[in-house]
Protein backbone atom coordinates (compact mmCIF):
# COMPACT_ATOMS: atom_id res chain seq x y z
CA UNK A 1 0.00 0.00 0.00
CA UNK A 2 2.82 2.37 0.87
CA UNK A 3 4.19 1.98 -2.65
CA UNK A 4 0.96 3.08 -4.33
CA UNK A 5 0.61 5.98 -1.93
CA UNK A 6 4.07 7.20 -2.89
CA UNK A 7 3.46 7.19 -6.64
CA UNK A 8 2.07 10.02 -8.68
CA UNK A 9 0.01 9.92 -11.86
CA UNK A 10 1.45 12.98 -13.61
CA UNK A 11 -0.42 16.09 -14.68
CA UNK A 12 -0.48 15.41 -18.45
CA UNK A 13 -4.21 14.77 -18.52
CA UNK A 14 -5.13 17.74 -16.33
CA UNK A 15 -7.84 20.09 -17.58
CA UNK A 16 -6.07 23.14 -16.21
CA UNK A 17 -2.70 23.85 -14.72
CA UNK A 18 -1.91 27.34 -13.49
CA UNK A 19 1.41 29.11 -13.82
CA UNK A 20 3.73 28.85 -10.85
CA UNK A 21 3.52 31.48 -8.18
CA UNK A 22 0.85 33.79 -6.95
CA UNK A 23 -0.65 36.82 -8.68
CA UNK A 24 -3.85 38.87 -8.81
CA UNK A 25 -4.48 37.47 -12.31
CA UNK A 26 -4.37 33.92 -10.99
CA UNK A 27 -6.89 34.73 -8.27
CA UNK A 28 -9.23 36.32 -10.83
CA UNK A 29 -8.79 33.30 -13.11
CA UNK A 30 -9.68 30.85 -10.31
CA UNK A 31 -12.81 32.80 -9.45
CA UNK A 32 -13.83 33.11 -13.11
CA UNK A 33 -13.35 29.38 -13.79
CA UNK A 34 -15.57 28.58 -10.82
CA UNK A 35 -18.26 31.06 -11.81
CA UNK A 36 -18.30 32.66 -8.38
CA UNK A 37 -20.46 35.56 -7.21
CA UNK A 38 -18.83 39.00 -7.06
CA UNK A 39 -18.58 39.07 -3.26
CA UNK A 40 -16.37 35.97 -3.23
CA UNK A 41 -13.96 37.42 -5.82
CA UNK A 42 -13.81 40.63 -3.79
CA UNK A 43 -12.94 38.67 -0.62
CA UNK A 44 -10.25 36.70 -2.48
CA UNK A 45 -8.59 39.89 -3.71
CA UNK A 46 -8.64 41.61 -0.33
CA UNK A 47 -7.23 38.44 1.24
CA UNK A 48 -4.43 38.35 -1.35
CA UNK A 49 -3.38 41.87 -0.36
CA UNK A 50 -3.51 40.85 3.27
CA UNK A 51 -1.35 37.77 2.59
CA UNK A 52 1.29 39.90 0.90
CA UNK A 53 1.32 42.40 3.73
CA UNK A 54 1.55 39.98 6.65
CA UNK A 55 4.81 38.49 7.96
CA UNK A 56 5.42 34.77 8.41
CA UNK A 57 4.80 33.81 12.05
CA UNK A 58 7.96 34.24 14.10
CA UNK A 59 7.10 31.36 16.42
CA UNK A 60 6.58 27.67 15.80
CA UNK A 61 8.29 25.57 13.16
CA UNK A 62 10.77 26.80 10.57
CA UNK A 63 8.90 28.06 7.48
CA UNK A 64 11.83 29.87 5.89
CA UNK A 65 12.38 27.15 3.25
CA UNK A 66 8.98 27.53 1.57
CA UNK A 67 9.47 28.78 -1.99
CA UNK A 68 6.23 30.70 -2.44
CA UNK A 69 7.01 31.66 -6.03
CA UNK A 70 7.51 28.06 -7.21
CA UNK A 71 4.26 26.54 -6.05
CA UNK A 72 1.36 25.75 -8.39
CA UNK A 73 -1.61 27.30 -6.63
CA UNK A 74 -4.36 25.79 -8.74
CA UNK A 75 -4.49 22.44 -10.57
CA UNK A 76 -7.68 21.02 -11.99
CA UNK A 77 -7.56 17.31 -12.91
CA UNK A 78 -11.14 16.92 -14.21
CA UNK A 79 -13.99 19.25 -15.10
CA UNK A 80 -16.93 17.69 -13.27
CA UNK A 81 -16.85 15.41 -10.24
CA UNK A 82 -17.87 11.83 -10.99
CA UNK A 83 -20.75 10.13 -9.26
CA UNK A 84 -19.55 6.57 -9.60
CA UNK A 85 -16.11 5.05 -9.03
CA UNK A 86 -16.34 3.17 -12.34
CA UNK A 87 -16.12 6.47 -14.24
CA UNK A 88 -13.10 7.80 -12.36
CA UNK A 89 -9.89 7.51 -14.43
CA UNK A 90 -7.84 4.47 -13.44
CA UNK A 91 -4.72 6.39 -12.47
CA UNK A 92 -6.72 8.34 -9.91
CA UNK A 93 -8.97 5.54 -8.76
CA UNK A 94 -6.17 3.14 -7.80
CA UNK A 95 -4.93 5.53 -5.09
CA UNK A 96 -8.30 5.60 -3.41
CA UNK A 97 -8.74 1.86 -3.81
CA UNK A 98 -5.38 1.27 -2.12
CA UNK A 99 -6.54 3.29 0.84
CA UNK A 100 -9.84 1.46 0.90
CA UNK A 101 -12.17 4.40 0.31
CA UNK A 102 -14.65 2.76 -2.12
CA UNK A 103 -14.87 -0.32 0.11
CA UNK A 104 -15.42 1.74 3.22
CA UNK A 105 -18.06 3.75 1.45
CA UNK A 106 -20.14 0.65 0.72
CA UNK A 107 -19.93 -0.64 4.25
CA UNK A 108 -19.28 2.09 6.77
CA UNK A 109 -19.97 5.55 5.49
CA UNK A 110 -22.90 7.87 4.94
CA UNK A 111 -21.16 9.81 2.20
CA UNK A 112 -17.78 10.32 0.54
CA UNK A 113 -15.98 13.07 -1.34
CA UNK A 114 -12.57 12.65 -2.89
CA UNK A 115 -10.36 15.56 -3.91
CA UNK A 116 -7.34 15.37 -6.21
CA UNK A 117 -5.10 18.45 -6.09
CA UNK A 118 -7.48 21.44 -6.32
CA UNK A 119 -10.82 19.89 -7.23
CA UNK A 120 -13.31 17.27 -6.09
CA UNK A 121 -13.28 14.26 -8.39
CA UNK A 122 -15.97 12.15 -6.78
CA UNK A 123 -18.84 12.59 -4.36
CA UNK A 124 -21.74 10.64 -2.92
CA UNK A 125 -24.26 10.85 -0.10
CA UNK A 126 -26.78 8.24 1.08
CA UNK A 127 -30.17 9.01 -0.43
CA UNK A 128 -31.98 8.79 2.90
CA UNK A 129 -29.84 11.58 4.34
CA UNK A 130 -30.23 13.79 1.28
CA UNK A 131 -34.01 13.44 1.65
CA UNK A 132 -33.78 14.72 5.22
CA UNK A 133 -32.00 17.83 4.05
CA UNK A 134 -28.43 16.84 4.87
CA UNK A 135 -25.97 18.45 2.46
CA UNK A 136 -22.47 17.08 1.75
CA UNK A 137 -20.79 18.72 -1.22
CA UNK A 138 -17.49 20.27 -2.16
CA UNK A 139 -17.12 23.86 -0.97
CA UNK A 140 -17.34 25.07 -4.58
CA UNK A 141 -20.67 23.27 -5.09
CA UNK A 142 -21.88 24.57 -1.73
CA UNK A 143 -21.18 28.15 -2.80
CA UNK A 144 -23.11 27.66 -6.05
CA UNK A 145 -26.07 25.72 -4.64
CA UNK A 146 -26.44 27.23 -1.13
CA UNK A 147 -25.11 30.78 -1.50
CA UNK A 148 -27.11 32.26 1.39
CA UNK A 149 -25.78 29.77 3.92
CA UNK A 150 -22.20 30.11 2.69
CA UNK A 151 -22.37 33.91 2.66
CA UNK A 152 -23.69 33.90 6.22
CA UNK A 153 -20.81 31.92 7.71
CA UNK A 154 -17.81 31.95 5.33
CA UNK A 155 -14.89 33.79 6.92
CA UNK A 156 -16.79 34.59 10.07
CA UNK A 157 -15.06 32.04 12.27
CA UNK A 158 -11.63 32.35 10.63
CA UNK A 159 -11.43 35.83 9.06
CA UNK A 160 -8.85 36.39 6.32
CA UNK A 161 -6.81 38.63 8.62
CA UNK A 162 -6.47 35.93 11.27
CA UNK A 163 -3.00 34.85 10.15
CA UNK A 164 -0.91 34.77 6.98
CA UNK A 165 -1.91 31.26 5.98
CA UNK A 166 -5.62 31.99 6.49
CA UNK A 167 -5.20 35.01 4.19
CA UNK A 168 -3.54 32.79 1.57
CA UNK A 169 -6.29 30.22 1.83
CA UNK A 170 -9.01 32.85 1.48
CA UNK A 171 -7.32 34.13 -1.69
CA UNK A 172 -6.78 30.82 -3.52
CA UNK A 173 -9.08 28.31 -1.82
CA UNK A 174 -10.44 25.49 -3.94
CA UNK A 175 -12.25 22.36 -2.89
CA UNK A 176 -12.83 21.32 0.67
CA UNK A 177 -16.19 20.30 2.09
CA UNK A 178 -19.51 21.97 2.67
CA UNK A 179 -21.61 20.13 5.22
CA UNK A 180 -25.03 21.23 6.42
CA UNK A 181 -27.13 19.26 8.90
CA UNK A 182 -30.67 20.52 9.62
CA UNK A 183 -32.01 20.73 13.18
CA UNK A 184 -32.57 17.46 15.01
CA UNK A 185 -31.05 15.24 12.32
CA UNK A 186 -28.69 12.55 13.65
CA UNK A 187 -26.22 11.40 10.99
CA UNK A 188 -25.20 8.04 12.42
CA UNK A 189 -22.48 6.98 9.99
CA UNK A 190 -19.43 9.15 9.31
CA UNK A 191 -19.11 11.48 6.33
CA UNK A 192 -15.71 10.94 4.79
CA UNK A 193 -13.51 13.29 2.76
CA UNK A 194 -10.20 12.28 1.27
CA UNK A 195 -7.62 14.78 0.01
CA UNK A 196 -4.77 13.85 -2.26
CA UNK A 197 -1.97 16.11 -3.49
CA UNK A 198 -0.83 14.59 -6.77
CA UNK A 199 1.27 17.08 -8.72
CA UNK A 200 4.79 18.07 -7.84
CA UNK A 201 5.20 21.43 -6.06
CA UNK A 202 1.44 21.64 -5.75
CA UNK A 203 -0.38 23.69 -3.20
CA UNK A 204 -3.67 22.48 -1.82
CA UNK A 205 -5.89 25.07 -0.20
CA UNK A 206 -9.08 23.41 0.78
CA UNK A 207 -11.74 25.34 2.61
CA UNK A 208 -14.28 23.48 4.74
CA UNK A 209 -17.46 24.85 6.27
CA UNK A 210 -19.63 22.71 8.52
CA UNK A 211 -22.90 24.06 9.88
CA UNK A 212 -24.81 21.86 12.32
CA UNK A 213 -28.19 23.13 13.46
CA UNK A 214 -29.79 22.72 16.88
CA UNK A 215 -29.84 19.25 18.36
CA UNK A 216 -28.24 17.65 15.29
CA UNK A 217 -25.27 15.31 15.24
CA UNK A 218 -22.59 14.46 12.68
CA UNK A 219 -19.16 12.84 12.48
CA UNK A 220 -16.86 14.12 9.71
CA UNK A 221 -13.69 12.20 8.91
CA UNK A 222 -10.91 13.37 6.64
CA UNK A 223 -7.80 11.64 5.44
CA UNK A 224 -4.96 13.01 3.36
CA UNK A 225 -1.81 11.87 1.61
CA UNK A 226 0.68 12.88 -1.08
CA UNK A 227 3.26 11.02 -3.23
CA UNK A 228 6.99 10.84 -2.53
CA UNK A 229 8.49 13.95 -4.11
CA UNK A 230 11.79 15.53 -3.24
CA UNK A 231 10.50 19.07 -3.61
CA UNK A 232 8.20 20.68 -1.12
CA UNK A 233 4.50 21.22 -1.45
CA UNK A 234 2.17 23.25 0.66
CA UNK A 235 -1.15 22.45 2.27
CA UNK A 236 -2.80 25.45 3.87
CA UNK A 237 -6.39 24.66 4.78
CA UNK A 238 -9.04 26.51 6.73
CA UNK A 239 -11.85 24.72 8.53
CA UNK A 240 -14.79 26.55 10.08
CA UNK A 241 -17.36 24.63 12.15
CA UNK A 242 -20.53 26.08 13.66
CA UNK A 243 -22.11 23.93 16.34
CA UNK A 244 -25.48 25.25 17.41
CA UNK A 245 -27.40 24.63 20.65
CA UNK A 246 -27.39 21.04 21.91
CA UNK A 247 -25.72 19.85 18.70
CA UNK A 248 -22.79 17.44 18.69
CA UNK A 249 -19.99 17.37 16.13
CA UNK A 250 -16.87 15.25 15.88
CA UNK A 251 -14.15 16.06 13.33
CA UNK A 252 -11.53 13.37 12.83
CA UNK A 253 -8.38 13.85 10.77
CA UNK A 254 -5.80 11.23 9.82
CA UNK A 255 -2.96 13.17 8.26
CA UNK A 256 -0.37 11.22 6.32
CA UNK A 257 1.20 13.74 3.95
CA UNK A 258 4.57 12.74 2.47
CA UNK A 259 7.60 14.08 4.35
CA UNK A 260 8.10 17.08 2.07
CA UNK A 261 4.72 18.70 2.62
CA UNK A 262 4.29 21.84 4.71
CA UNK A 263 0.98 21.38 6.50
CA UNK A 264 -0.23 24.70 7.91
CA UNK A 265 -3.86 24.62 8.95
CA UNK A 266 -6.32 26.84 10.82
CA UNK A 267 -9.27 24.96 12.30
CA UNK A 268 -11.82 26.58 14.56
CA UNK A 269 -15.29 25.80 15.90
CA UNK A 270 -17.85 27.93 17.70
CA UNK A 271 -19.87 26.00 20.24
CA UNK A 272 -23.27 27.19 21.45
CA UNK A 273 -25.24 26.48 24.63
CA UNK A 274 -25.05 22.85 25.80
CA UNK A 275 -23.39 21.80 22.54
CA UNK A 276 -20.28 19.65 22.11
CA UNK A 277 -17.37 19.83 19.68
CA UNK A 278 -14.74 17.08 19.52
CA UNK A 279 -11.55 17.24 17.49
CA UNK A 280 -9.68 13.97 16.95
CA UNK A 281 -6.38 14.71 15.25
CA UNK A 282 -3.75 12.20 14.13
CA UNK A 283 -0.56 13.56 12.59
CA UNK A 284 1.85 11.09 11.08
CA UNK A 285 3.23 12.71 7.94
CA UNK A 286 4.39 16.05 6.56
CA UNK A 287 7.72 17.81 6.94
CA UNK A 288 6.20 20.51 9.09
CA UNK A 289 2.75 20.60 10.61
CA UNK A 290 1.42 23.63 12.43
CA UNK A 291 -2.12 23.00 13.54
CA UNK A 292 -4.04 24.05 16.66
CA UNK A 293 -7.75 23.16 16.36
CA UNK A 294 -9.78 25.47 18.57
CA UNK A 295 -13.11 25.63 20.27
CA UNK A 296 -14.71 28.95 21.12
CA UNK A 297 -17.10 27.97 23.90
CA UNK A 298 -19.66 30.73 23.50
CA UNK A 299 -22.76 29.31 25.13
CA UNK A 300 -23.41 28.26 28.69
CA UNK A 301 -22.60 24.59 29.29
CA UNK A 302 -20.68 24.21 26.01
CA UNK A 303 -18.05 21.47 25.91
CA UNK A 304 -14.90 21.25 23.79
CA UNK A 305 -12.63 18.26 23.43
CA UNK A 306 -9.36 17.54 21.67
CA UNK A 307 -7.72 14.15 21.31
CA UNK A 308 -4.47 14.55 19.47
CA UNK A 309 -1.59 12.32 18.55
CA UNK A 310 1.58 13.09 16.62
CA UNK A 311 4.49 10.96 15.49
CA UNK A 312 7.58 12.92 14.44
CA UNK A 313 10.30 11.01 12.62
CA UNK A 314 13.51 11.98 10.87
CA UNK A 315 13.29 15.50 9.44
CA UNK A 316 9.79 16.07 10.78
CA UNK A 317 8.53 18.84 13.00
CA UNK A 318 5.04 18.25 14.39
CA UNK A 319 4.02 21.47 16.10
CA UNK A 320 0.46 20.81 17.17
CA UNK A 321 -1.93 21.44 19.98
CA UNK A 322 -5.30 22.96 20.71
CA UNK A 323 -6.98 26.10 21.94
CA UNK A 324 -9.99 26.18 24.21
CA UNK A 325 -11.47 29.61 24.76
CA UNK A 326 -14.09 29.69 27.51
CA UNK A 327 -16.37 32.70 27.16
CA UNK A 328 -19.49 31.58 29.00
CA UNK A 329 -20.38 30.14 32.41
CA UNK A 330 -20.13 26.41 33.21
CA UNK A 331 -18.23 25.53 30.06
CA UNK A 332 -15.83 22.59 30.11
CA UNK A 333 -12.93 21.40 27.99
CA UNK A 334 -10.54 18.51 27.84
CA UNK A 335 -7.32 18.15 25.87
CA UNK A 336 -5.42 14.87 25.64
CA UNK A 337 -2.26 15.05 23.59
CA UNK A 338 0.09 12.15 22.92
CA UNK A 339 3.27 12.51 20.93
CA UNK A 340 6.21 10.38 19.92
CA UNK A 341 9.46 11.75 18.59
CA UNK A 342 12.06 9.44 17.12
CA UNK A 343 15.02 9.31 14.71
CA UNK A 344 15.71 13.01 15.18
CA UNK A 345 12.14 14.22 14.88
CA UNK A 346 10.67 17.06 16.93
CA UNK A 347 7.21 17.01 18.45
CA UNK A 348 5.87 20.09 20.21
CA UNK A 349 2.61 20.68 22.01
CA UNK A 350 1.45 24.26 21.76
CA UNK A 351 -1.85 25.01 23.39
CA UNK A 352 -3.96 27.60 25.07
CA UNK A 353 -6.73 27.40 27.59
CA UNK A 354 -8.29 30.73 28.29
CA UNK A 355 -10.99 31.40 30.86
CA UNK A 356 -12.60 34.74 30.06
CA UNK A 357 -14.05 36.97 32.77
CA UNK A 358 -17.55 35.55 32.15
CA UNK A 359 -16.52 31.90 32.38
CA UNK A 360 -17.79 31.44 35.92
CA UNK A 361 -17.77 27.85 37.15
CA UNK A 362 -15.91 26.59 34.08
CA UNK A 363 -13.35 23.76 34.17
CA UNK A 364 -10.61 22.51 31.92
CA UNK A 365 -8.17 19.63 32.03
CA UNK A 366 -5.13 19.19 29.81
CA UNK A 367 -2.95 16.07 29.70
CA UNK A 368 0.12 15.93 27.45
CA UNK A 369 2.28 12.83 27.34
CA UNK A 370 5.37 12.52 25.19
CA UNK A 371 7.73 9.69 24.39
CA UNK A 372 11.20 10.43 23.13
CA UNK A 373 12.62 7.30 21.59
CA UNK A 374 16.29 8.17 21.12
CA UNK A 375 18.95 10.80 21.89
CA UNK A 376 18.51 12.45 18.48
CA UNK A 377 14.92 13.47 19.01
CA UNK A 378 13.26 16.31 20.79
CA UNK A 379 10.01 17.08 22.58
CA UNK A 380 8.68 20.42 23.80
CA UNK A 381 5.50 21.70 25.38
CA UNK A 382 4.36 25.31 25.36
CA UNK A 383 1.05 25.57 27.16
CA UNK A 384 -0.43 28.95 27.75
CA UNK A 385 -3.11 29.05 30.40
CA UNK A 386 -4.95 32.26 31.09
CA UNK A 387 -7.43 32.38 33.86
CA UNK A 388 -9.17 35.70 33.92
CA UNK A 389 -11.82 34.92 36.47
CA UNK A 390 -11.45 33.59 39.99
CA UNK A 391 -14.28 31.14 39.79
CA UNK A 392 -12.97 28.83 37.08
CA UNK A 393 -10.59 25.91 37.27
CA UNK A 394 -7.76 24.64 35.11
CA UNK A 395 -5.65 21.52 35.47
CA UNK A 396 -2.69 20.79 33.28
CA UNK A 397 -0.20 17.97 33.38
CA UNK A 398 2.53 16.86 31.04
CA UNK A 399 4.98 14.00 31.14
CA UNK A 400 7.98 13.39 28.90
CA UNK A 401 9.97 10.20 29.05
CA UNK A 402 11.32 7.23 27.10
CA UNK A 403 9.76 3.80 26.83
CA UNK A 404 10.32 2.15 30.22
CA UNK A 405 13.10 -0.39 30.26
CA UNK A 406 11.36 -2.57 32.87
CA UNK A 407 8.29 -2.74 30.65
CA UNK A 408 10.37 -3.92 27.69
CA UNK A 409 12.30 -6.46 29.78
CA UNK A 410 9.05 -7.85 31.17
CA UNK A 411 7.53 -8.34 27.71
CA UNK A 412 10.75 -9.88 26.43
CA UNK A 413 10.72 -12.31 29.34
CA UNK A 414 7.31 -13.36 28.03
CA UNK A 415 8.75 -14.24 24.64
CA UNK A 416 8.42 -11.05 22.57
CA UNK A 417 11.39 -9.63 20.69
CA UNK A 418 12.56 -6.15 21.69
CA UNK A 419 10.94 -4.70 18.58
CA UNK A 420 7.61 -6.41 19.27
CA UNK A 421 7.69 -5.20 22.87
CA UNK A 422 8.38 -1.64 21.76
CA UNK A 423 5.54 -1.73 19.23
CA UNK A 424 3.10 -3.08 21.80
CA UNK A 425 3.96 -0.42 24.35
CA UNK A 426 3.59 2.34 21.76
CA UNK A 427 0.20 1.01 20.73
CA UNK A 428 -0.86 1.07 24.36
CA UNK A 429 0.44 4.62 24.68
CA UNK A 430 -1.65 5.76 21.71
CA UNK A 431 -4.67 3.62 22.50
CA UNK A 432 -6.89 6.35 24.07
CA UNK A 433 -6.76 8.23 20.78
CA UNK A 434 -6.92 5.29 18.40
CA UNK A 435 -9.90 3.87 20.29
CA UNK A 436 -11.89 6.91 19.19
CA UNK A 437 -11.37 6.38 15.46
CA UNK A 438 -13.88 4.57 13.25
CA UNK A 439 -12.87 0.90 13.15
CA UNK A 440 -11.31 0.72 9.68
CA UNK A 441 -9.29 3.86 10.35
CA UNK A 442 -8.06 2.48 13.65
CA UNK A 443 -6.78 -0.61 11.85
CA UNK A 444 -5.19 1.56 9.16
CA UNK A 445 -3.63 3.91 11.69
CA UNK A 446 -2.13 1.07 13.70
CA UNK A 447 -0.54 -0.21 10.49
CA UNK A 448 0.81 3.21 9.59
CA UNK A 449 2.25 3.73 13.07
CA UNK A 450 3.88 0.30 12.89
CA UNK A 451 5.47 1.22 9.54
CA UNK A 452 6.82 4.43 11.08
CA UNK A 453 8.18 2.68 14.15
CA UNK A 454 10.15 -0.07 12.36
CA UNK A 455 13.83 0.44 12.89
CA UNK A 456 13.38 2.84 15.76
CA UNK A 457 14.63 0.34 18.31
CA UNK A 458 18.10 1.16 19.66
Amino acid sequence: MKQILNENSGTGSYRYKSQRGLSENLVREISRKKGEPAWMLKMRLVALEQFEAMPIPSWGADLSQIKWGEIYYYLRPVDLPYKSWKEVPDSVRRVFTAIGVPEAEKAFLAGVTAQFDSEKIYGSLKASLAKQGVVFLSMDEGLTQYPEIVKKYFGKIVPYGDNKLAALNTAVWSGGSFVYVPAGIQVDLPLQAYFRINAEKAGQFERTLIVVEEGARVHYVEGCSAPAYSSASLHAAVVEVIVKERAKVRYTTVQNWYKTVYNLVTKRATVAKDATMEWVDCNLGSRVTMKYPSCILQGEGAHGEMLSMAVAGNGQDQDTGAKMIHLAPRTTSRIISKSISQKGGRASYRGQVKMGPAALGSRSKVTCDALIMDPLSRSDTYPNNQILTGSSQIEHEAYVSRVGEEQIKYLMSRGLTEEEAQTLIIRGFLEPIVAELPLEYAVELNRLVKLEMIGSVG
Partner: protein
Amino acid sequence: MRKIVKKYSKPGKWKVVILFEKRGEEKEWEGIIDARGEGEYELLVVADHRVGETRGRVTVKTVVGRNARVKIRGVIKIAKKAQETENFLEMRGLMLSSTSQVMAEPELEIEANNVKASHAASVGPVDSEQIGYLRSRGLSEAEAIDKIVLGWLGV
Protein backbone atom coordinates in the same frame (compact mmCIF):
# COMPACT_ATOMS: atom_id res chain seq x y z
CA MET B 1 17.43 17.35 48.50
CA ARG B 2 18.37 20.86 49.54
CA LYS B 3 15.33 23.13 49.34
CA ILE B 4 15.33 26.84 48.72
CA VAL B 5 12.14 28.78 49.39
CA LYS B 6 11.55 32.30 48.13
CA LYS B 7 8.61 34.46 48.99
CA TYR B 8 7.25 37.35 47.00
CA SER B 9 4.56 39.45 48.67
CA LYS B 10 4.55 42.71 46.69
CA PRO B 11 3.84 43.34 43.02
CA GLY B 12 6.92 43.03 40.85
CA LYS B 13 8.80 41.13 38.16
CA TRP B 14 11.38 38.41 38.89
CA LYS B 15 13.56 35.93 37.07
CA VAL B 16 15.15 32.89 38.72
CA VAL B 17 17.53 30.47 37.01
CA ILE B 18 18.23 27.13 38.69
CA LEU B 19 21.36 25.80 37.07
CA PHE B 20 22.42 22.13 37.10
CA GLU B 21 26.08 22.01 36.06
CA LYS B 22 27.55 19.21 38.19
CA ARG B 23 26.67 15.58 37.62
CA GLY B 24 24.45 14.22 40.37
CA GLU B 25 23.30 17.63 41.60
CA GLU B 26 19.91 17.73 43.27
CA LYS B 27 18.05 20.95 43.85
CA GLU B 28 14.59 21.79 45.08
CA TRP B 29 13.13 25.26 44.72
CA GLU B 30 9.83 26.64 45.92
CA GLY B 31 8.45 30.06 45.09
CA ILE B 32 5.49 31.47 46.97
CA ILE B 33 3.73 34.47 45.50
CA ASP B 34 1.42 36.04 48.03
CA ALA B 35 -0.64 38.18 45.70
CA ARG B 36 -3.36 39.22 48.09
CA GLY B 37 -2.58 42.86 47.37
CA GLU B 38 -3.70 44.50 44.14
CA GLY B 39 -1.19 44.70 41.33
CA GLU B 40 0.81 42.73 38.79
CA TYR B 41 3.18 39.94 39.75
CA GLU B 42 5.37 38.24 37.17
CA LEU B 43 7.76 35.33 37.76
CA LEU B 44 9.97 33.47 35.30
CA VAL B 45 11.74 30.41 36.72
CA VAL B 46 14.05 28.30 34.56
CA ALA B 47 15.45 24.90 35.55
CA ASP B 48 18.45 24.52 33.26
CA HIS B 49 19.85 20.97 33.18
CA ARG B 50 23.18 21.09 31.35
CA VAL B 51 24.63 17.78 32.57
CA GLY B 52 23.25 14.34 33.32
CA GLU B 53 22.06 12.58 36.44
CA THR B 54 20.67 15.79 37.92
CA ARG B 55 17.40 16.01 39.76
CA GLY B 56 15.21 19.00 40.27
CA ARG B 57 11.88 19.85 41.76
CA VAL B 58 10.33 23.25 41.19
CA THR B 59 7.12 24.39 42.84
CA VAL B 60 5.37 27.72 42.49
CA LYS B 61 2.37 28.48 44.65
CA THR B 62 0.32 31.61 44.46
CA VAL B 63 -2.66 33.07 46.25
CA VAL B 64 -4.36 35.75 44.19
CA GLY B 65 -6.61 38.39 45.72
CA ARG B 66 -8.94 41.01 44.36
CA ASN B 67 -7.64 42.85 41.26
CA ALA B 68 -4.34 41.02 41.43
CA ARG B 69 -2.77 39.59 38.26
CA VAL B 70 -0.14 36.90 38.45
CA LYS B 71 1.89 35.57 35.54
CA ILE B 72 4.07 32.50 36.09
CA ARG B 73 6.28 31.10 33.39
CA GLY B 74 8.22 27.96 34.35
CA VAL B 75 10.64 26.31 31.95
CA ILE B 76 12.37 22.96 32.33
CA LYS B 77 15.26 22.77 29.86
CA ILE B 78 17.15 19.54 29.39
CA ALA B 79 20.20 19.63 27.11
CA LYS B 80 21.09 16.81 24.72
CA LYS B 81 23.79 15.34 26.94
CA ALA B 82 21.86 15.69 30.18
CA GLN B 83 20.70 12.08 30.20
CA GLU B 84 19.09 10.47 33.25
CA THR B 85 17.79 13.80 34.47
CA GLU B 86 14.57 14.10 36.44
CA ASN B 87 12.47 17.13 37.10
CA PHE B 88 8.94 17.89 38.18
CA LEU B 89 7.54 21.43 37.84
CA GLU B 90 4.37 22.21 39.71
CA MET B 91 2.24 25.37 39.66
CA ARG B 92 -0.71 25.88 41.97
CA GLY B 93 -2.94 28.89 42.08
CA LEU B 94 -5.65 29.73 44.58
CA MET B 95 -8.04 32.48 43.51
CA LEU B 96 -9.82 34.51 46.14
CA SER B 97 -11.98 36.77 44.02
CA SER B 98 -13.82 36.84 40.73
CA THR B 99 -11.43 39.58 39.61
CA SER B 100 -8.28 37.54 40.31
CA GLN B 101 -6.29 36.62 37.21
CA VAL B 102 -3.58 34.02 36.66
CA MET B 103 -1.52 33.21 33.59
CA ALA B 104 0.31 29.90 34.03
CA GLU B 105 2.77 28.74 31.39
CA PRO B 106 4.66 25.58 32.34
CA GLU B 107 7.05 24.79 29.48
CA LEU B 108 9.30 21.87 28.62
CA GLU B 109 12.22 21.86 26.17
CA ILE B 110 13.66 18.36 26.15
CA GLU B 111 16.54 17.27 23.94
CA ALA B 112 17.63 14.12 25.79
CA ASN B 113 15.58 10.95 25.63
CA ASN B 114 16.52 9.06 28.80
CA VAL B 115 14.87 11.49 31.21
CA LYS B 116 11.79 11.93 33.31
CA ALA B 117 10.33 15.38 32.99
CA SER B 118 6.84 16.35 33.93
CA HIS B 119 4.83 19.32 34.99
CA ALA B 120 1.45 20.09 36.42
CA ALA B 121 -0.53 23.24 36.87
CA SER B 122 -3.84 23.76 38.58
CA VAL B 123 -5.70 26.93 39.34
CA GLY B 124 -9.03 27.29 41.05
CA PRO B 125 -11.10 29.02 43.71
CA VAL B 126 -11.21 28.22 47.44
CA ASP B 127 -13.16 25.05 48.18
CA SER B 128 -16.58 26.14 49.42
CA GLU B 129 -16.93 22.97 51.49
CA GLN B 130 -13.83 23.86 53.46
CA ILE B 131 -15.21 27.35 54.12
CA GLY B 132 -18.55 25.85 55.18
CA TYR B 133 -16.87 23.55 57.66
CA LEU B 134 -14.86 26.32 59.35
CA ARG B 135 -17.88 28.57 59.52
CA SER B 136 -19.82 25.80 61.23
CA ARG B 137 -17.06 25.91 63.82
CA GLY B 138 -17.73 29.60 64.53
CA LEU B 139 -15.29 31.43 62.23
CA SER B 140 -16.50 34.26 60.04
CA GLU B 141 -16.13 33.82 56.29
CA ALA B 142 -13.11 36.14 56.19
CA GLU B 143 -11.40 34.27 59.07
CA ALA B 144 -12.11 30.95 57.39
CA ILE B 145 -10.55 32.04 54.11
CA ASP B 146 -7.51 33.42 55.95
CA LYS B 147 -6.95 30.08 57.69
CA ILE B 148 -7.36 28.12 54.49
CA VAL B 149 -4.92 30.38 52.66
CA LEU B 150 -2.29 30.03 55.43
CA GLY B 151 -2.64 26.27 55.36
CA TRP B 152 -2.44 26.21 51.60
CA LEU B 153 0.68 28.35 51.44
CA GLY B 154 2.28 25.99 53.91
CA VAL B 155 3.84 28.73 55.99
